[in-house]
């Protein structure tokens, strides 16, 4: 009996070091511990909190779907859903279009190509809050440099109220988001473009294909897998954006720019209603899943249409 325990221990030790599964488990341990404690568990806890009336400093009780019923009748919540969809759609489309355009330009033979590639990524590297502060100053209601230029050109007669008017505010935050997102789309698509052999384009050109035909029949189809991945990321991060809005408008004016993420923060932290905030966050999950599924299945269908076997 006395010798059994050490033998067993050493056999577990041996299993951990010798077998593939033991070793895998051992190596996975640190990452798994972090992700289970601070990602999986909070994700579940968040869903649970959405069913409670927890407030800051006071643990709540289970109240079923009450938070969701409450949100269903809340016009501000629906406004935030509308804003989030508008923000995501418009910003993603613009980021895709402009990013692809920039990628196509950078794919040409240019002097100092590496230099351009490097400086164009700067908006993506600089912390969002800090560049958003620069936009805040650019959008100043009195001393906006944009208003100054437009007034000097005689195009407008008084400063534009960028962040004070609902629609202007929406357009302004979208513009700032597009500014930040273009580099990522452009550089990633550029990587995709560089894998397309030049000879395909040349052959098509010799056969009399116009530049537009070459773009739609060769470039786009070959680029579509990478487009799907890039746009999944882009849509996902735009949909859950928080920083830009928080810096520029904090959801105002009159909730016109509240996204679901900022509304969730607003209700949970300054508002103290953790349960309700969590419910709004949980309400984002179906949209996120839809975005992921859409792009993955879109990609699969594309492959299937092209008759790829892999």
């Amino acid at each position, binding site marked *: 009996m006395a010798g059994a325990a050490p033998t067993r221990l050493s056999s577990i030790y041996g299993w951990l070091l010798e077998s593939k599964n033991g070793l895998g488990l051992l190596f996975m341990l640190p990452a798994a511990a972090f992700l289970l404690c601070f990602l999986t568990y909070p*994700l579940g806890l968040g869903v649970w909190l959405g069913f409670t009336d927890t407030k800051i400093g006071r643990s709540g009780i289970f109240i079923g779907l009450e938070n969701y019923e409450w949100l269903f009748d809340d016009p501000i919540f629906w406004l935030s859903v509308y804003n989030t969809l508008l923000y995501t759609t418009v910003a993603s489309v613009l980021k895709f279009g402009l990013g692809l355009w920039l990628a196509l330009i950078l794919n040409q033979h240019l002097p100092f190509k590496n230099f351009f590639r490097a*400086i164009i990524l700067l908006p993506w590297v600089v912390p969002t809050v800090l560049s958003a*502060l*620069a936009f805040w100053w650019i959008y100043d209601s009195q001393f906006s440099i944009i208003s100054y230029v437009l007034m000097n050109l005689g195009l407008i007669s008084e400063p534009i109220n960028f962040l004070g008017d609902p629609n202007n505010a929406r357009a302004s935050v979208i513009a700032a988001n597009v500014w930040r997102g273009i580099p990522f789309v452009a550089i990633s698509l550029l990587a995709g473009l560089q894998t397309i052999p*030049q000879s395909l384009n040349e052959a098509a050109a010799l056969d009399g294909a116009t530049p537009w035909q070459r773009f739609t029949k060769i470039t786009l189809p070959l680029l579509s897998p990478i487009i799907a991945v890039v746009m999944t990321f882009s849509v996902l991060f735009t949909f859950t954006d928080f920083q830009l809005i928080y810096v520029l408008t904090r959801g105002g004016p009159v909730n016109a720019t509240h996204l679901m993420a900022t509304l969730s923060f607003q209700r949970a932290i300054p508002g103290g209603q953790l349960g309700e905030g969590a419910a709004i966050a949980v309400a984002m999950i179906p949209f996120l899943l839809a975005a992921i599924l859409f792009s993955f299945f879109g990609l699969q269908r594309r492959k299937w249409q092209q008759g790829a076997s892999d």
Partner: protein
Amino acid sequence: MSRQTISDPIAVNDDVQGLDQFSTLTRRLMVVYLPLAVFVFVLLFPFYWMAITAIKPDHQLSNYREYSPFWVVQPTLDHIKYLLFETSYPGWLWNTMLVSVASTFISLLASVFAAYAIERVRFTGARVTGLLIFLAYLVPPSILFIPLAFIVFQVGIFDSRLALILTYPTFLIPFCTWLLMGYFRTIPFELEESALVDGATRWQILTKVILPLAVPGLISAGIFAFTLSWNEFIYALTFISSSENKTVPVGVLTELVRGDIYEWGALMSGALLGSLPVVILYSFFVDYYVSSMTGAVKE
């Protein structure tokens, strides 16, 4: 048929001049250089505006009649001095640095093991684990911060830098693991096999064979993790309440913006100084950054 052309290595290394002969110089100017100039201008202008505001004396800031807003007449370091000597800014810089370095280090360590296990040990369920790691990266902080705040509070680390050091790896580990998995895949199996035959243990293989070869991958993962931590905002905003524990993005936004009087000079210096560390790091390792970014997407 087109598939064959793509996989043909000779076709890829085709004559680089390509279709250039078809376009004339003016056309190129309109189609390539002009739009590129506009893109570069728009993408860089906010930084120029940030920089110029940071060194502009206060009386010039809002006086567009006497001074052109586009340049500075008598540049001043007053805003930066104010920031460094009369606010908690140096402390915020230190906090951000500490938190970023610590969470990057932890994440790299955990990711190297995880990526090696998934990619090379090939334990049962390695593929599924890899997929789960990828999915973990897609879970956004803006749906995790409420329960995390709850946990952080209950564990008793609310309003401490430790709260950030422990939570940042949730988005860093998935990203780094994913990046390193791709990198490990490019290291030939044969190297490992011959080391195994020579009697090396897994640990020796990892530290003596794989890691030295994976240095470029480690550098990219490290820069990315550092940049992502430096950029993080919502956790730092939620978990930290006292001024001395704040990070740069949170500190600048919550402590330098007072009431209705915006000290644009100080704010822009704060934004500029806070961006410098990541920009400097980025400029040294720009190729790693670009290749890992594109590599991560292509995987």
